[in-house]
């Protein structure tokens, strides 16, 4: 049975049809029709399967007959198909059934084997206790293998190509491959699905946890929390602390950071940085926090400190400071802590108060000052360790205070709020008697102690180079004596501040016990320091107080003056404090100078005597001031408040104080604030009045002048001090005043002693003072002397230092300045020295005054100088006068010299005539080689060499030029090579280069104004001229011109082809063609070739001369062509000219020939035309001949005769006869026609 596939059926075919159709060849068992339809249901393919019982022969027949036969509109395609799967399935089933029938036989076979094996001792294919490899007896192919297993030996048929056909596989030899499978180990039991999950064995790290699906518990949102914290009290407090710490970053340490808190701290840090500007809200919050939690801050601060993070610029040194500061800060901040820390209860109060004072002061002080103080505090604290506890505490306080100040307004506010709390507790509890003044004093003392601590270690101050320089400058200007100036300054400031204490009572109401004061007095050093501090703070704080209060205070003062006697020393202290305050001010003004002075102060502080001396001096000053005030204050409205204060003090001392006078002074005091702007000049005036004072003032002035930037601040300070001073005059509470009186009296006496030789005014004052001295004069005198001695030593030291400074600076300046200036300065200082020498015997003060006076002359205005001179005159001091005269003289010299210098400088920068020009420059260079040394000065004589040099230069230039030429040559060479390279490589590039010159023809217009275009005109004229010159001869030529133009036209066409880039090959082919044509023509006509050949050759020659393209264009038309040629570039125009010129000649020659030709036959013209046509292609070639140019071979051919002359003649005759016959024939025809026409 076969199954046939029948394809290509039409859709109409039915199974029956198929059956019938195939029935012829065999019995059709089954027909299956299938129709493929596209999605729309349209049948596009129909085929069928036919199961047919057919023999091979019939099948063949069937295929041959029916295959590819057309049936019902379709072409049958019959192929033998596979059996239908149903049929195959049935077959398989049948087979399997058959196999089943056969199996029992196989089983029997197996059973036999087993039996035989068992006979051989094999049980269940295992043979126990058998060595592997032993054969089973009776069974050839069975072998015992590992574990006693009996295995068959396999015969494997090897693949083709291998040598042995069969491979024998003996399992016993591979027994090591056999492994025993224990049934028990095989996991038969199905594990429940739940246990099928497996666990990832991971570490404890987060990622693995998360992978396992364990997520850490939700952490609180940190930033939010911190924010809320801020609202709460604790964090609120932290804020300020942090901000503080941040501002003074260097004071904080990294060491305290805890790891766990670190991050939080950082966050806060960032926030704080943002909050540096401190919003009001925050401030309020902070203040509230401060009030509510007094105790907590410390602990929290500690914690906070641990969290701090510091930048890279953080310094280890400052960090050390920071530790201390932190503690200090804590102590300072909370009163309780503070109290607990203080060892002596008596001093507790002192220490309590200072912060308040500081707070007050803090409000008023400038930021500059704060910063400076802060720095100094830091420095102090470094060295605090050595000092005793008291000092430590005191020292810490200021630093803390400063920190607070630095922190910002919030803190200040806080403190101010704290103050009320603190004050009552401290002051009221401790003190029975509450005098305003006393309280103030105590406060002052406390503050002073702080201040003292601040400056206790200033000797160790590190002064930067810049500071040193500044200092040196100051010293220079002051002339040698820095120390006196310093002293003077101290005096002045003392005068400024003595009245401080009085000022404070107004705002503050507290009282310090007198006992404490006495204690303070006893402790000389510490007390002094404290006082100083007090003064400073008071000075700071007092600034805001209005002058008006001063009047009231004055009244009070007058009333209180006579009260307490025992406080005479306080005044001194106050003065001392004033010094200190002054120092402070100066510090603020200029760090360096202040530092120096601080050192001095420290020295002075060492002993009370020295201080007392200073006090005495101050008192003296006061006395003098008093005198001055009486006499001159009225005249000088612009007097400093300082002086007035002093005068007030003096009034107190005098006891002759009249309230009226005081009031007047107060009024003056009132005035000064207005005049404060002029403070400096006024100070000068004041100093003039009291020379000592003047010295100090002058010093200050100098400082001010030098440190221009500091001026403003200083003035401010002065103003403040003035403000304080004015109230201070009022403030003098009775006790204070009385004591001062006494002391001042003593001081006055001393001053009198000292100044006996000094001004008459002073003497008068002293006289006034004398009666009051009575009390402690003797003691004071002793002290004073000692102090004087020390001070002298110190002053001398100072002088030495100053001199050193001067020298240093001079040395430095000598290089810069002209020698004159230096000399002048030197003279000035020399005079000072002399004065000093002369005054060795005399008092210091005098000397100082002199020096100061000299300084005045140097630096003060003309007014001051005049006044000074007046003072001197009154003094009648010869020494002074001398000194001053010297100074004066030296002064002008100084400045005059400088003026001269200036002039010189002006001229110096002009270019001197000998240095002008190039030679001059060289000369200058020559000279500069030797510097300004006179010995090696170079004249213009030395320039002669330069000329030689010039010649040399010229030579070198020549060589250079030669080199350049060489290079040029080389360049040309390389370019030529380049051309060759490029030319060989790209011929097109060359042509392209030429093509560039080609320009649009239509763009060119005839311009008569252009000379180049004249060529076009001239041609015609020339032609005309020629024609005119020889009309008869050239008539013919003129007639023949058109012929000439024809030829040119052909040239043009050839050029165009070249322009359009025809390749060589083409041209060659054309040439060949042409040759071929020529040959044909030659065959046709010999003579014409002879004539045409020259025609061809001539244009080619012409082309050599011209650039080809243009020439061709000109040829186009004789007249119109001229315009077209203009389309070419200007360069191209010349070519046409030539062509123009040449054309006639060419025409001439050709025309002559042609004339000859014309004689011969009419047909010649036709032939020429043909020849020219033939010529055309030849022109497509390059204009220039190249080695294998066909033209070179063809050209000569045109001259030669191709065939022998006789042959040609024969040919010609043959042709001639033929032609004649034809001619006759035609003639006859024509005649016939004529006759016929005539007939008709």
């Amino acid at each position, binding site marked *: 049975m076969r199954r046939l596939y029948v394809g290509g059926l039409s859709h109409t075919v039915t199974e029956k049809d198929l059956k019938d159709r195939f029935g012829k060849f065999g019995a059709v068992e089954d027909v299956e029709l299938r129709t493929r339809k596209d999605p729309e249901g349209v049948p596009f393919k129909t085929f069928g399967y036919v199961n047919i019982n057919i023999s091979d022969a019939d099948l063949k027949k069937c295929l041959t007959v029916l295959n590819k036969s057309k049936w019902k509109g379709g072409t049958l395609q019959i192929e033998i198909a596979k059996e239908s799967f149903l049929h195959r399935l049935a077959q398989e089933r049948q087979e399997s059934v058959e196999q089943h029938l056969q199996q029992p036989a196989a089983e029997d076979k197996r059973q036999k084997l087993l039996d035989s094996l068992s006979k051989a001792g094999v049980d269940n294919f295992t043979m126990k206790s058998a060595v592997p490899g032993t054969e089973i007896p009776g069974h050839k192919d069975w072998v015992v293998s590992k574990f006693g297993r009996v295995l068959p030996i396999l015969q494997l048929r090897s693949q083709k190509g291998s040598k042995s056909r069969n491979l024998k596989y003996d399992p016993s030899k591979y027994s090591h491959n056999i492994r025993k499978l224990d049934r028990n180990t095989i996991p038969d039991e199905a594990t429940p699905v739940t246990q099928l999950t497996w666990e990832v064995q991971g570490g404890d790290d987060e990622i693995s946890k998360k992978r396992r699906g364990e997520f850490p518990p939700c952490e609180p949102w940190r930033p939010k929390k911190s924010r809320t914290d801020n609202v709460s009290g604790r964090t609120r407090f932290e804020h300020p602390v942090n901000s503080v710490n941040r501002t003074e970053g260097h004071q904080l340490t990294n060491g305290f950071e805890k790891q766990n808190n670190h991050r939080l701290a950082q966050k806060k840090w960032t926030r704080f940085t943002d909050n540096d500007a401190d919003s009001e809200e925050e401030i309020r919050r902070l203040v509230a926090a401060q009030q509510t939690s007094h105790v907590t801050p410390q602990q929290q601060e500690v914690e906070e400190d641990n969290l701090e993070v510091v930048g890279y610029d953080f310094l280890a040194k400052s960090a050390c400071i920071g530790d201390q500061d932190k503690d200090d800060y804590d102590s300072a901040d909370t009163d309780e802590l503070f109290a607990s820390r203080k060892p002596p209860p008596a001093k507790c109060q002192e220490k309590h108060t200072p912060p308040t004072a500081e707070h007050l002061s803090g409000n008023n002080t400038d930021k500059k000052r704060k910063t400076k103080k802060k720095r100094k505090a830091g420095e102090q604290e470094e060295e605090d360790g050595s000092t005793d506890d008291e000092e430590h505490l005191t020292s810490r306080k200021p630093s803390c205070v400063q920190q607070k100040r630095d922190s910002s307004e919030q803190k200040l506010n806080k403190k101010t709020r704290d103050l009320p709390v603190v004050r009552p507790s401290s002051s009221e509890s401790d003190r029975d008697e509450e005098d305003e003044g006393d309280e103030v004093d105590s406060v002052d003392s406390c503050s002073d102690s702080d201040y003292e601590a601040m400056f206790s270690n200033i000797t160790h101050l590190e002064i930067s180079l810049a500071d040193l320089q500044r200092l040196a400058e100051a010293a220079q200007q002051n002339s040698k004596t820095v120390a006196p100036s310093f002293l003077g300054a101290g005096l002045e400031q003392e005068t400024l501040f003595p009245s401080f204490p009085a000022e404070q009572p107004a705002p503050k109401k507290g009282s310090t016990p007198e006992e404490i004061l006495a204690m303070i007095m006893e402790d000389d050093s510490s007390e002094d320091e404290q006082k100083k501090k007090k003064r400073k703070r008071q000075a700071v704080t007092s600034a805001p107080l209005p002058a008006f209060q001063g009047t009231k205070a004055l009244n009070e003062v007058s009333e209180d003056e006579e009260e307490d006697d025992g406080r005479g020393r306080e005044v001194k202290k106050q003065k001392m404090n004033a010094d200190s305050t002054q120092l402070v001010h100066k510090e603020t003004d200029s760090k360096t100078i202040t530092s120096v002075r601080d050192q001095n102060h420290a020295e002075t502080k060492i002993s009370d005597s020295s201080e007392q001396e200073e006090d005495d001096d101050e008192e003296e000053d006061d006395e003098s001031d008093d005198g001055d005030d009486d006499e001159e204050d009225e005249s000088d409205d612009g007097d400093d408040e300082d002086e007035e204060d002093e005068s007030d003090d003096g009034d107190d001392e005098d006891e002759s104080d009249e309230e009226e006078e005081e009031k007047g002074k107060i009024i003056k005091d009132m005035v000064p604030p207005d005049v404060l702007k002029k403070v400096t000049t006024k100070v000068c005036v004041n100093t003039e009045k009291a020379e000592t004072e003047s010295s100090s003032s002058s010093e200050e002035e100098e400082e001010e002048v030098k440190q221009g930037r500091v001026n403003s601040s200083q003035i401010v300070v002065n103003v403040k001090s003035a403000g304080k001073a004015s109230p201070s005059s009022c403030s003098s509470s009775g006790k204070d005043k009385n004591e001062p009186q006494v002391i001042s009296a003593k001081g006055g006496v001393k001053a009198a002693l000292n100044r006996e030789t000094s001004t008459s005014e002073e003497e008068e004052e002293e006289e006034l003072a004398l009666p009051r001295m009575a009390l402690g004069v003797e003691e004071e005198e002793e002290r004073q002397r000692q102090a004087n001695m020390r001070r002298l030593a110190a002053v001398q030291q100072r002088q030495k230092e100053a001199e050193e400074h001067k020298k240093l600076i001079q040395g430095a300046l000598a290089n810069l300045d002209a020698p004159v200036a230096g000399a002048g300065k030197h003279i000035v200082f020399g005079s000072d020295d002399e004065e000093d020498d002369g005054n060795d015997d005399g008092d210091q003060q005098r000397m100082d005054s002199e020096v100061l006076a000299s300084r005045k002359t140097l630096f003060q205005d003309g007014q001051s100088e005049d006044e000074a001179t007046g003072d001197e005159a009154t003094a009648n001091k010869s020494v002074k006068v001398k000194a001053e005269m010297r100074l004066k003289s030296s002064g002008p010299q100084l400045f005059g010299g400088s003026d001269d210098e200036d002039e010189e400088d002006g001229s110096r920068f002009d270019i001197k005539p000998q240095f002008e020009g190039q030679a001059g420059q060289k000369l200058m260079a020559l000279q500069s080689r030797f510097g300004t040394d006179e010995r090696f000065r170079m004249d213009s004589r030395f320039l002669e060499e330069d000329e030689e040099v010039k010649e040399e230069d010229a030579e070198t230039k020549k060589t250079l030029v030669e*080199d350049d030429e060489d*290079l040029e040559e080389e*360049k040309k*060479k*390389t*370019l030529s090579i*380049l051309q060759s*390279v490029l030319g060989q*490589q790209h011929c097109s590039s060359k042509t392209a280069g030429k093509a560039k010159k080609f320009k649009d023809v239509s763009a060119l217009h005839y311009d008569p104004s252009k000379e180049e275009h004249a060529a076009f005109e001239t041609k015609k004229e020339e032609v005309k001229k020629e024609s005119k010159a020889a009309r008869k001869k050239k008539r013919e030529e003129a007639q023949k011109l058109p012929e000439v133009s024809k030829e040119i036209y052909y040239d043009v066409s050839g050029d165009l082809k070249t322009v359009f880039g025809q390749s060589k090959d083409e041209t060659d082919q054309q040439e060949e063609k042409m040759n071929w044509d020529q040959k044909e023509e030659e065959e046709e006509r010999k003579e014409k070739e002879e004539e045409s050949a020259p025609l061809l050759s001539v244009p080619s020659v012409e082309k050599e001369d011209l650039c080809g393209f243009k020439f061709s264009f000109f040829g186009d038309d004789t007249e119109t062509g001229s315009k077209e040629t203009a389309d070419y570039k200007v360069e191209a125009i010349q070519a046409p000219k030539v062509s123009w010129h040449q054309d006639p000649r060419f025409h001439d020659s050709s025309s002559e020939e042609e004339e000859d030709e014309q004689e011969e036959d009419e047909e010649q013209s036709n032939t020429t035309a043909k020849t020219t046509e033939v010529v055309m292609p030849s022109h497509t070639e390059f204009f220039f001949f190249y080695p294998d140019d066909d033209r070179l071979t063809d050209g000569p051919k045109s001259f030669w005769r191709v065939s022998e002359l006789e042959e040609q003649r024969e040919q010609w005759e043959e042709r001639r006869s033929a032609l004649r016959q034809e001619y006759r024939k035609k003639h006859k025809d024509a005649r016939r026609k004529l006759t016929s026409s005539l007939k008709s």
Partner: protein
Amino acid sequence: MRPLTEEETKTMFEKLSKYIGENIKLLVDRPDGVYCFRLHHDRVYYMSEKILKLATNFSRDKLMSVGTCFGKFTKTKKFRLHITALDFLAPYAKFKVWVKPGTEQSFLYGNHVLKSGLGRITENTMQYQGVVVYSMADVPLGFGVAAKSTQECRRVDPMSIVVFHQADVGEFIRNEETLT
């Protein structure tokens, strides 16, 4: 140090002209001064007249290099272009090939440029035409030779070589000792 002989000049120009064609003229004939080629230790240096004169002060054996090295003459008297000439040739390059960013590195390591890495190519590039290889950011990376013409490049499979590597700026690092 001596000027090139005619032969050498020709060889070099032929090589250069593969990359910049007749633009060599711009190198030889510069408006900003006289520039010239000099042979020194088999290497061709391109330098200004100024530097040339300065260089005359040094003895031949002491002179490492002058001006810009354009390439060297091999022992077989062929001219081999060095990457140092890139700065002078790149601006005048007639045929350029831009490589994709991924292929940049491959090229800079001395590999040929495959079709897959070819970002852009100048049209009408002939086979074996010298090209300057650029990154897509128009940074010249080196020299190459077109392995396929532009037309062929369009058809070839992505793994076929399109540009043969000649020199690349990576040589500044790789061949630092030989580049002078």
